[in-house]
C-alpha cells in the first residue's frame, strides 16, 4: 500500500470544479430560499384545523418525506414534459425537485415553531382584532423564528448535501464535474477526496452555526 497521491493534477483542473461549484451554490440558494417561504404556507395549512388544507398539506409532506430525493428528481425530469408539455432543463428539474422536497421539511419546522408559541399570544392578537395573517406576521413569526433557526440551518445542511444528487440527472454541478474529472484523469481517489473536502469546507460552517445557535437558545432558556 504505497500509492503516491497525485493531487497536483486535480488542483490544476480547479477551474472545472469551480464552475461546478457555482451551479451547486445556485441550486442551493434557489431551492432553499423558495422552500423557506413555501414551507410557511404548507406548515400553516398543516397546522390548520380545517380539514381540506390540512389533508392536502399532510399528504404533500408525507409524500416528499417518504420517498428518496433521487426518485423525486428523476420523476420531475420525466413527468413535467409528459404531463405539462413543458420540457425543463435538467437544472430546472433539479432545482424544482430540491425546492419541493425541502419545502416539505421546512413545513414541519414551521408547524412545530408556530405551535411552540403559548396560546395566550394568539389570543392576545385576536383580542385586539388582528387577522390571522397579521397575527402570523406581527406576533407569531417574529417570536418563533429565533427558535426555528437551528432547525432551518440543519435543513440547509441536508439540502447542500442533496444538491450532489442533481448530478445523476446531468446537472453539471460540483459532483458531476468531479465524475468527469475522475474519468479524464484516471485519478478517482484524488478527485473524490478533494471534492469531499470541498463539500466539507462548504457545509461544516453551517453545522457549527447550528450548534452555536442551539447553545445560545438553550442558555437563554427560550
Amino acid at each position: 500500500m504505497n500509492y503516491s497521491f497525485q493531487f497536483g493534477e486535480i488542483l490544476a483542473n480547479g477551474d472545472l470544479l469551480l464552475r461546478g461549484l457555482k451551479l451547486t451554490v445556485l441550486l442551493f440558494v434557489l431551492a432553499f430560499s423558495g422552500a423557506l417561504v413555501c414551507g410557511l404556507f404548507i406548515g400553516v395549512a398543516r397546522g390548520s384545523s380545517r380539514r381540506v388544507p390540512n389533508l392536502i398539506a399532510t399528504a404533500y409532506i408525507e409524500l416528499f418525506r417518504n420517498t428518496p430525493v433521487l426518485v423525486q428528481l428523476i420523476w420531475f425530469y420525466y413527468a413535467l414534459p409528459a404531463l405539462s408539455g413543458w420540457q425543463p432543463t435538467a437544472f430546472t428539474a433539479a432545482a424544482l425537485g430540491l425546492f419541493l422536497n425541502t419545502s416539505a421539511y421546512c413545513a414541519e419546522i414551521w408547524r412545530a415553531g408556530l405551535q411552540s408559541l403559548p396560546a395566550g399570544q394568539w389570543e392576545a392578537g385576536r383580542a385586539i382584532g388582528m387577522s390571522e395573517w397579521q397575527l402570523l406576521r406581527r406576533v407569531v413569526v417574529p417570536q418563533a423564528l429565533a427558535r426555528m433557526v437551528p432547525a432551518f440551518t440543519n435543513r440547509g445542511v441536508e439540502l447542500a448535501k442533496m444538491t450532489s444528487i442533481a448530478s445523476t440527472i446531468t446537472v453539471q454541478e460540483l459532483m458531476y464535474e468531479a465524475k468527469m474529472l475522475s474519468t479524464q484523469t484516471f485519478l478517482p481517489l484524488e478527485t473524490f477526496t478533494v471534492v469531499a473536502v470541498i463539500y466539507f469546507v462548504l457545509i461544516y460552517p453551517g453545522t457549527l452555526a447550528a450548534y452555536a445557535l442551539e447553545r445560545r437558545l438553550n442558555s437563554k432558556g427560550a
Partner: protein
Amino acid sequence: MANVLPADVLPADATPVLAVEGLRKSFGTNEVLKGIDLKVGAGERIAILGSSGSGKSTFLRCINFMETPSAGRIALDGTPIGTEGRNGALTAKSGELRRLRTRVGMIFQQFNLFPHMSVLENVMEGPVTVKGLPKAEARAKAQDYLKRVGLAEKADQYPQRLSGGQQQRVAIARALAMEPEILLFDEPTSSLDPELVGEVLDVILGLSREGRTMLLVTHELGFAYHFATRVLFLHEGRIHEQGTPDEVLKNPREERTQAFLHRFSAFHF
C-alpha cells in the same frame, strides 16, 4: 330563582350595549354554559363571581368569540354577532370577528403581552396594524394611555423587565388603545403576587369612574363590592343570583351563594 330582570336595571327604552340570550357552550360532551341571558346597559360594571368550573371565564370568552358559542345569541348595540348555523352554533366570518374584537377589549389572566415588542409598541400594535392609524398618531395615543395606567416612563422597556402588576397595567393600556365600547377582564389579578394586586385594581377602579362598560371575572370579593354596579353569581353554567353588590354580597338569598361567600371567611367590606 331571584333574578333581577334586566328590565329593572335598564331604562325601558334603552338598547342594551350588550345583549346575551340563551347562551350555551359545550366542550365535547361537557356543557359548561347552560343558557345564560344578560342585558348590559351603557356604563354598567358587572362583576362575575363563581367557584372554579362554574363557567364564568368561558362566559366572558364567549362574548368576544374567543370561544365560539354552541347556541344562543349575542348582540352588540342591538346588532347580532354572527349567524346561527344548522346545528344552532353561532358562526361569524373572520372580518366580522375582527370588527367585534376592536369594539370589545379583553384583559387576560396571564397578561399575554407581546415579548418581542417594547411596552409602547405593544400598546401601538392594535391601532397601527388593525385600525391602520398613522404611527405618529398611534404613538401619541399609546403614550397617553400608558400615562393613564401610570407607566409612561416604562414605554421603551420590554415586558419581561416589568413586574407582573406593571405588565397587567400595560395590557390594560393595550386594550384601551383600541377605544373599545366594552372591556372584559378575565381574572386580571389571579396570577399576581398579593402585593401587586392593588396597583392593578386601582387602575381598574379609575376606569370605572370614567363610566366605561365593563365585565369582570374575579375572586376578589372586596374589590367586586366597590367596583360593580351589578354582581352575577354563576353556578353550574347558569346565573344563579344577581343584583346590586349589597344584595348579592351582603344579603345573598340563595343558599349556594351564601355557601360560596362563606368560604371566604376573611372577607370584609
